[in-house]
């Protein structure tokens, strides 16, 4: 891996993941070695079924690898106890999902403040920060709305605000534009890029949205559970046509 002296915010070493379904054994990841530098905007590309989402779950400490190690800030995730793991998911990483995964029965502001409640903040603090984050994503006036009363794009923006709640060092986005139309997808991408350049947040995004490539520093292509190739943006020769 070509490192440039920055510290690795995420490092994977010989990570494999095997799913067992009845008598079937599916190797979703077949030995991934990879390092992600702090402040990078990284896209993980690949066809569906290539292991993208599985890799995403490994990087985000949302699932355990079958073999191999995952380091976040050079700490081996497997060595962490439940409290440390919860702290890591709460403070260090912000998650954005294709299906938004907002709590349907909670309002926008309740969804955004939830990670801060888990972090032990007091009410005044988390309400203020929550409103500030909703303003950032342009939804301040809809803070009392529940997800079913919001459009897909708005729901995803709430999810982005929620991911930022505890000012994480890493934002992990699993196909964040997958359920959105072109324009709203672009809005989300712009927002993520803005976070990466303005706040130095590491953005890691699994995607098959070509628009994502334009803003990524590096693109990792996954194929059949392995890293197929890694491309720096400056080497990319794909030009994205004007679609939509």
């Amino acid at each position: 891996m070509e490192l440039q002296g920055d510290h690795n915010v995420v490092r994977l070493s010989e990570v494999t993941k095997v799913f067992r379904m009845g008598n079937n054994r599916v190797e979703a990841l077949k030995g991934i070695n990879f390092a992600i530098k702090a402040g990078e905007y990284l896209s993980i590309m690949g066809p569906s079924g290539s292991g993208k989402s599985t890799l995403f779950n490994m990087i985000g400490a949302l699932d355990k690898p079958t073999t191999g190690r995952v380091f976040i800030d050079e700490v081996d995730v497997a060595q962490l106890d439940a409290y440390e793991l919860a702290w890591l998911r709460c403070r260090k990483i912000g998650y954005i999902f294709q299906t938004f995964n907002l709590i349907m029965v909670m309002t926008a502001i309740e969804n955004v403040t939830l990670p801060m409640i888990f972090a032990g903040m007091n009410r005044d603090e988390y309400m203020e920060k929550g409103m500030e984050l909703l303003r950032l994503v342009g939804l301040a006036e809809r803070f009392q709305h529940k997800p079913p009363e919001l459009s897909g794009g708005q729901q995803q923006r709430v999810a982005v605000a929620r991911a930022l709640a505890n000012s994480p060092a890493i934002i992990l986005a699993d196909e964040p534009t997958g359920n959105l139309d072109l324009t709203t997808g672009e809005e989300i991408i712009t927002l993520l890029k803005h976070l990466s350049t303005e706040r130095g947040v590491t953005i890691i995004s699994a995607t098959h949205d070509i628009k994502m490539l334009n803003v990524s520093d590096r693109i990792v292509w996954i194929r059949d559970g392995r890293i197929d190739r890694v491309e720096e943006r400056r080497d990319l020769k794909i030009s994205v046509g004007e679609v939509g």
Partner: protein
Amino acid sequence: MSQSVERQVVLPFAQVVRISFNSMRVRLARSLITTASLALAIAFVAYIWSGYAILNSVWPHIDSSVQEDILSSGYEMTDGHFGSSPKDRWLAILSLIVCVVGIVNAQLMAVTERFREIGTFKCLGALNSFVVRIFVLEGIYQGIFGGLIGSILGILVATLTITLKLGWSAIVFWPALKMLLTIAEALFLAALLSLLGVMYPALVAARMEPAVALRAEA
């Protein structure tokens, strides 16, 4: 940037109570359905139990012709008491089984359909204990509320049917103390069974890796 990993704080209990209460309030319709199944199951048990209690209490004070009537309508007396013949005991056990299955099933369903929510909670930094506490509290609220409604309903129906058969003497010699005891027993039973139904899926879900809980079919 800090390199170390700290330990997540455990939320104060008052905060957990607030969240669990809100969580029930906002899905009132769904949680009323769960509570209703609890209440109906408990109503059946309370009906059987209180029916015998009323009969036993009223029996010495009614005419022998009415007593004949009761016996000929199918009630069986053993050692001067109702509710202790093998048939009656079977009926009580049967009502209990219906109650266990009804409540446990209702709670299993209610928790299982929230696996994704549990997965989301865990992604956002919830501890396993938080997840379990939320569901245990909700189970207890529903158990107590459903138990109260159910036992009152059961006792009301039992009183009504026996009054229709025996006339006002059923009300005059109504065993109030025994009824209170029935309500207390039914409440305890409802809370216990509701907890039993909630605990298993909540424990399973709390221990799941977040990615697995999120994948679960909602």
